[in-house]
């Protein structure tokens, strides 16, 4: 096995974390997964990731992560560079990229016009009836502000803004039925937000 060092940029929600992995030279049993020295945001750990069940041939499944002397159980599911990690009852979407690829792409993105900045599409998480539209196009919203109220399973659910920005488009009106995944509105993150 090569002793090369791998450097990754990991995005968790809106945070970026630099991770450097170096295969651990100390002997290890291959069935336990190989050990690494990990440098995370400048702090060093001994880490080892072991899959608990092998029947699922794809990358997803239950893993044990040993981090120095601590061991935790995680569910990890990966598709390409996108990962979903279940931790303490919450599911976190993460993206993993080799640090070099990430840096190149960011530099490229920096040249793009501000108007090409990614927008946030707010979609219905489940089918239901739009009972209230709380925002208008052009309105500024803060994270947690109510956008649309959808009634489903006899319960009213308020869809809230995930980040600050300007409501660019509202694509539903009150009284309308929506399917799961249907676009409700589009938020354009404010300058200096998000990236």
């Amino acid at each position, binding site marked *: 096995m090569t002793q090369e060092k791998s450097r990754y940029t990991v995005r968790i929600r809106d945070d970026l974390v630099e991770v450097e992995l170096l295969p651990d030279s100390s002997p290890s049993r291959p069935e336990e997964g190989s050990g690494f020295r990990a440098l995370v945001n400048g702090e060093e750990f001994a880490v080892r990731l072991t899959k608990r069940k092998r029947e699922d041939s794809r*990358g997803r499944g239950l893993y044990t992560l040993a981090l120095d002397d601590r061991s935790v159980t995680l569910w990890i599911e990966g598709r390409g560079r996108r990962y979903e990690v279940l931790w303490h009852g919450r599911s976190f979407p993460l993206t993993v990229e080799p640090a070099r690829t990430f840096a190149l792409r960011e530099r490229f993105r920096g040249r793009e016009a501000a108007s090409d900045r990614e927008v946030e599409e707010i979609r219905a998480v489940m089918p239901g009836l739009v009972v209230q539209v709380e925002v208008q196009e052009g309105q500024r919203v803060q994270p947690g502000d109510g956008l649309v109220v959808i009634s489903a*399973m006899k*319960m009213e659910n308020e869809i809230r803004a995930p980040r600050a920005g300007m409501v660019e488009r509202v694509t539903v009106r009150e009284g309308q039925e929506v399917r799961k995944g249907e676009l409700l509105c589009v938020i354009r993150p404010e300058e200096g937000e998000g990236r």
Partner: protein
Amino acid sequence: MLIANRGEIAVRVIRACRALGLRAVAIYSDADRDALHVRLADEAHRVGPAPASESYLNAPKILEIAHEAGCEAVHPGYGFLAESAEFARLVERQGLLWVGPPPEAMELVGDKLAARRTAQREGVPTVPGVYEPLRTLEEAREAAQEVGYPLLLKAAAGGGGKGMRLVSDEQELKNSFARAVSEVEQAFGDPSVYVERYVPKAKHIEVQILADHHGNAVHLYERECSVQRRYQKLIEETPAPLLSPKQREEMGQAALAIARAVGYRNAGTVEFLYDVERKEFYFLEVNARIQVEHPITEMATGIDLVQWQLRIARGEPLDFAQPDVRPRGAAIEFRIYAEDPDQNFLPSTGRIRELLWPSGPGIRVDAGVERGDRVSPYYDPLLAKLIVGGESREEAIERARRALEETIVVGVATTVAFHRETLEDERFLQGSYTTDFVATLKPQGLSPQERALLAAAAALAYEQERRALREALQSSAKAQEALWKWASP
């Protein structure tokens, strides 16, 4: 026994049937064909399409199945038809045993205004307000003036937070009264509304009762259920922290007085509001059914409530009296809903791809689903209940932390994270929390250590996948080389 329900409560009733040697007959909608309660029952019958109105609420069809299957009794569980006196009557009229209170008693407590009057007659304190329905805005304004703002405008036929609205001043009352009345009439078929004082800092405390058909009635002490969202409970515990022994006794007696006054039989719950500032309790309503949170009472008292429901229904007398009910230690229930606490408890649907429940001393899990099951959007999204007991509240909380750590549900968002955070909240730990707890709980962000852990895990997964791929490519290249060597001579 026909079980006219689904999910974890159907499973719970099946287990009680087994304990008593009764045959359990389940019903299922098209969405529940492979559900756990169907798999566990002795036999199961299709009741209709997925929507509840065509399946679990379809009374004639349910009774038809009861007859075809040769059932002698019907257990309604909670929700669906459980509190329908009309359904109870139909069941009895067909010569079947109804596992629940008599329909007359259900009607008496189903009308929240009539229940208030009963409480008042029995000398049980009620939330200050009116006792007769308000017909006109004028009547409502007069009543409101006496009660004072802010107040709650409630439906007599409502309950459990349904048909209820907070009114902060006279202008709002003027604006909303007519609409409230018409909404209430549409929802319940009865336009009766009334007003009650709004108690801002309140605890929700309820008393479990059991009454047989031989004049015996006992209470099994209280449960505190103040951790709620949309008037739906998330965490319940017994005993109620901060309640004095004297008030605990008084509440138990008040519950029994009301139960006797309405001729209550079987298992039931009398709900009270506890005003934290005045340190007083008020009667709220009676729930004429088994409740979701009954297991914490079972854990503390050692009394199997669902089994007693069946035994009372078939005419057995209670074989214990009030002094025999001696709760021990503390018990807490955590409702594991398929809901996302980060999205305002929005229901979450999908297939449960992985499911690990905790175990060990003081742990009980009442689940309605197994790994591989689908959570459909049609019904209440309760997946399971985690019940944790200990010799003390502190021990129960400590065990609960571990149990929640062990709990893994993959495929749908759940309330597990919410429960973990609640167990770190000072108000919960002190027991001083009130019904506004969920609304005022601040979401916790990730700590730098947690971020590092997650990032390391994802990067490692990526790295290992890449290495595995490289090795596979190398070995397949070697294999090809070997193949060529073999083929070339």
